[in-house]
């Protein structure tokens, strides 16, 4: 159990359920938000270590969430992984420019996705340095 807290922002309840189960099974604590407004509220309240963010959201899209987070001192350092159904050719660079650490198109490859999460949380580094010693 790593005990790290991840906030998933997505408006699809089944996706939330499935991803929550997957992340919990990998030892993470999970909290959810289903629109752009509550995303910020929940993020400020829960102070997650990582945010998994959808782009198409009710009440403003994911880019809005990214921008707001970058302006808030308590959220500016929180890594964000974008997980969206949108076409990466148009949206990947925009997301990375807006401060996301990675962009995955739905559905992501499970292993790659988890590996990216670990990297963003600084866990993979720790593991590799452990292996070297």
């Amino acid at each position, binding site marked *: 159990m790593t005990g790290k807290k991840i906030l998933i922002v997505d408006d*699809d309840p*089944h*996706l939330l*359920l*499935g*991803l929550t*189960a*997957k992340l*919990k*099974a990998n030892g993470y604590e999970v909290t959810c938000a289903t629109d752009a407004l509550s995303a910020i509220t929940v993020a400020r309240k829960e102070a997650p270590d990582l945010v998994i963010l959808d782009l*198409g959201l009710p009440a403003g899209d994911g880019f809005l969430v990214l921008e707001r987070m970058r302006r808030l001192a308590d959220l500016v350092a929180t890594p964000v992984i974008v*997980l969206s*159904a*949108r*076409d990466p050719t148009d949206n*990947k*660079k925009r997301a*990375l420019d807006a401060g996301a650490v990675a962009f995955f*198109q*739905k*559905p*992501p490859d*499970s292993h790659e996705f988890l590996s990216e999460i670990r990297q963003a949380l600084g866990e993979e580094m720790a593991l590799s340095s452990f292996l070297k010693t």
Partner: protein
Amino acid sequence: MTSEPSGRVDASEYPPAAGPIPFRRMEKNWGVDLSPGLRADLLDFTAWGEILTMYGRTMKVAVALTNSQGQILGKCHNEQPVWKLVRDASPGWAAGCPFCITTGLPCTAVADALQTGVTVMVRDQAGLTHVAVPLSLGEQPLGAIIAGQVFDRYPESLLLRRVAKEFGVSAQRLWDLASRQRPVSQGILQTSGDLLRSLGDAFLRQRYSSILEEQLAETNGRFRLLVEEVRDYALFTMDPTGRVTSWNGGAERMLGYLEAEIVGQNFSCFFSPDDIQNLVPEKQLRKALEAGEAKDEGWRVRENREQFWADVSITALLEHVGPFGGFAIVMQDVTDRKRIAIVLEEARQERTRLQEKFLSHVSHELRTPLTAIYFFVTNVLDGVLGDLTPEQREHLTFALDNVNQLKDMVSDLLDITRVETHKLIVEPRQASPVKLIAEAISTCGTNAATKNISLRFQAAPDLPLVWADPVRVRQILINLIDNGIKFTPESGTLTVACRPFAEDDGFVCLSVSDTGCGISPANREIIFDRLAQIKSGSGASRSGLGLGLFIARELVSGHGGRIWVESQQGHGSTFYFTLPVFSLAKLCSPIFTVPNLEAGSVTLITVDVVPVEGTVHADIALEIRRVLERCIHPGQDVLLPSMSGAEPVQTFFIVACTDPRGFEVIANRIGRELRTFDKDSRLKPVISSTTLLVTPDRSREEQIGEVTAGIERVVQAHPMAKERLQ
């Protein structure tokens, strides 16, 4: 003595005829066959009659004109009473020679004269002599002039009697008729032949040129009439400066100016003010002068300022046509056609836009539920909900396979829209075909393993790098390999191979061979078509949306290669496709099409991108490339590909340009654009330049060689390249 009548003189019976009179043939060879109409026109007796009559009167001979078949075309002066007699007596006379008092056989004088091209003198059975003078234009015989000796005397009373008997008149009557004629000596007739020869030639030539003149005048008249009558086209001419010199009815109707108003005005008044400002009229005249003709479609302006869409063709007139040369313009008002085309194009774009929107929406909407299914299935497979029985695991694995298939289909749908909206972009770079195949094989490995299919890889040694988009080539390969796996029975073999393309050394050929059921010849034709899904009974339950090979074909042709299949039914199939070999010389070739290379140098602008921290992300590198592409003159300057070996993240870029003054402009533009692109100054670009001297008098190939060698030197000397090569 022969009793047989003969058209020709028999030397043993009659005094010898004068030999053929040699003459000078006309030099010019008339290559074109004269038409029957022109022949008749040339020998029109109403034209010839006067001169021949005059000649006959002067020379005291009878003259006739015949065509090439020897038929008499016109009446002659001084018609001999004997002829009339003979004609009256013999109805078939018309085809005979009026100068021969013979029966039965035709006179061959005209035929001989035309065949030999010389003047032929003949004496008939009655002792009458006549000459046939050939008339020909070049090699083409037209007819003859016959000049006949007026009766001298019948040499023998026996002959006189015989002839008289044959025509059924009394010998006395014949004698009376004949003796009224005035004798002409043979010598005179011979001179007469020479004279006639010259006269005939001269008059024939005169006749010929006057006919041509008549025809030309008629054509001109018809043409003028035609030009003026044409209503649907504006036809007008201009002097070399573009001032109107002639104007037809169609032009008046189309452009609204009367001839009197427009002649002398510059044709730029038919253009919009924008076109005039952009020197469009001048450019068109220059193009017409250079190429002989300029075609254009565009908006033009009528006298009442109304715009219309015109199809225009400007032809440069050669100087010998008019005193100063100039231009002829044909203009058609195709506004209606254009309007329809615009409406159709708008409708097509709207349809494509809606289709793209719909497909992109569908693909987007499919992805979210697909993701939920994917998460649930992988969670259960990962044992999140507890242990699974082997059967449960098997079923869930099938479910996962199907989810992955659905995911690929959704991606294909999006690619199809991209093909149709021309957004399926191939971004080639240097790539190792071996590496690309190895990656594709490793991706498809699991898939092959589940069917116990062995995946083999055969690569020819020393394969060159290809100029291809790695992502797209992997997509093509994975598509072909997955297809192969689908159609190959369990424990089969799939071979991916790569070798130089035998037909064209500018390409390498990649192939995927399976040991499946093969493809019938009919299916081989349609297999690359959109939605071509081959029904097969070989246990392949489903073959996707049938878009895979269509997309593969589009991707291969986007690379400039081609794709095809060879197959023997029951013995498997082999799919081949070609990719262009990377060639620095080929990439550099646009530089050498620029005329000002005579300045003798190519400047390389190196742009180093050194990020403040970390490395340049591949996507950012691609964006930088696009920025640089915008800064150069396309088709003149070249943005070189990553020169640092395989295909890692690019960190320095080289632009080759030829204009010795232009490179600073380009370098400044690059600096400006990169600053706009990199607002946060994270990239710290450094721009430097190197000048390569080119030997001006060398051949193009040698110059390309000099430049590519120079580029390679610069690349090798670059610190980042060194670092990467190690």
